[in-house]
């Protein structure tokens, strides 16, 4: 808890300075008193010391004359490979994002096929009034003429629907 209070108070930077010795003697005395009361601060100081020691002991990177001669041409070659047009990058347009997208283009083609099939086959399966299905003939309505009468019947063991017209003998 004390450590987080120290961090919030900006003492992290002073801990780093203390580790590297970039601090006045009086200030160093106060830091030592602080470290005595703050274990987390001591661990942080140890971490800084380890880091600085590592940095100071890292070997210098050196190049052989051949590597040095090939270094810049290699960098320039990579720059050329990754060269982009001078125009600033722009957001892809809707056309590029949707119309040119192969997967979406395929989806739109499939949707169009479904639309056409629906329009073509839809009327064949749902055309006209009513949708009642029947295996045989179905008489929807019967109307007799002026001088006739009609009877609708079906024999028990027959599939025939019969509209029987009673015609006046004189007609």
């Amino acid at each position: 808890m004390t450590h987080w209070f120290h961090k919030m108070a900006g003492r992290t930077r002073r801990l780093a300075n203390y580790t590297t010795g970039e601090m006045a003697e009086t200030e160093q005395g106060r830091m030592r008193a602080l470290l005595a009361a703050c274990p987390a601060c001591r661990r942080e100081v140890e971490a800084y010391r380890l880091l600085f020691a590592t940095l100071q002991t890292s070997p210098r990177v050196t190049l052989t004359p051949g590597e040095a001669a090939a270094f810049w041409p290699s960098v320039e070659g990579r720059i050329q490979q990754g060269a982009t047009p001078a125009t600033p990058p722009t957001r892809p347009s809707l056309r590029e994002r949707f119309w040119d997208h192969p997967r979406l283009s395929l989806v739109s083609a499939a949707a169009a096929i479904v639309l056409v099939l629906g329009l073509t086959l839809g009327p064949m399966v749902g055309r006209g009034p009513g949708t009642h299905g029947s295996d045989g003939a179905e008489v929807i309505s019967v109307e007799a003429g002026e001088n006739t009468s009609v009877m609708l019947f079906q024999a028990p063991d027959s599939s025939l629907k019969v509209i029987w017209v009673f015609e006046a003998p004189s007609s």
Partner: protein
Amino acid sequence: MEELLWRRCLVFVCVGFAVVRLGGSPTEVWAQEVVSLRAQVIYAANEPGGVDAKLGNLAGELQRTFRYSMYQLLEAPQGSAALNRPWRVGLPGDRTLEVIPTAIQGGQYNLTVHVLGPGGQALVNTQVRLRGGGPPVIVGGLLHQKGVLIIAISAG
């Protein structure tokens, strides 16, 4: 990239076809449908003659339905009609059979059937729904000679 072009072409063709299909009114689209129609005109009477072999399977159905001793197939005109267009057949006794397909629905055909007398007066008006290749609807009872006419109307 070439595949993408093909897909675009497919989209254009399909959408164009859909627009053409949508552009016409339903009546125009239906009017292009043609329905095959058939009428078997049978003379039935209680007189010698038996059952006409040309009636085929219909003979048995007629014998189960009626009690005539003789069934003779007089004619069996066939034709076709577009939706909402009449198909007319002359019947014995200067009568006329008029069949008008009004709708096609899942392999079934809605028909308006008129039987007209010699003067053009309606003897019977009916609306029926027939399954393509299914049993016919029978309009009978029209007096003819010593018996009656039985008309079997089928579609599809």
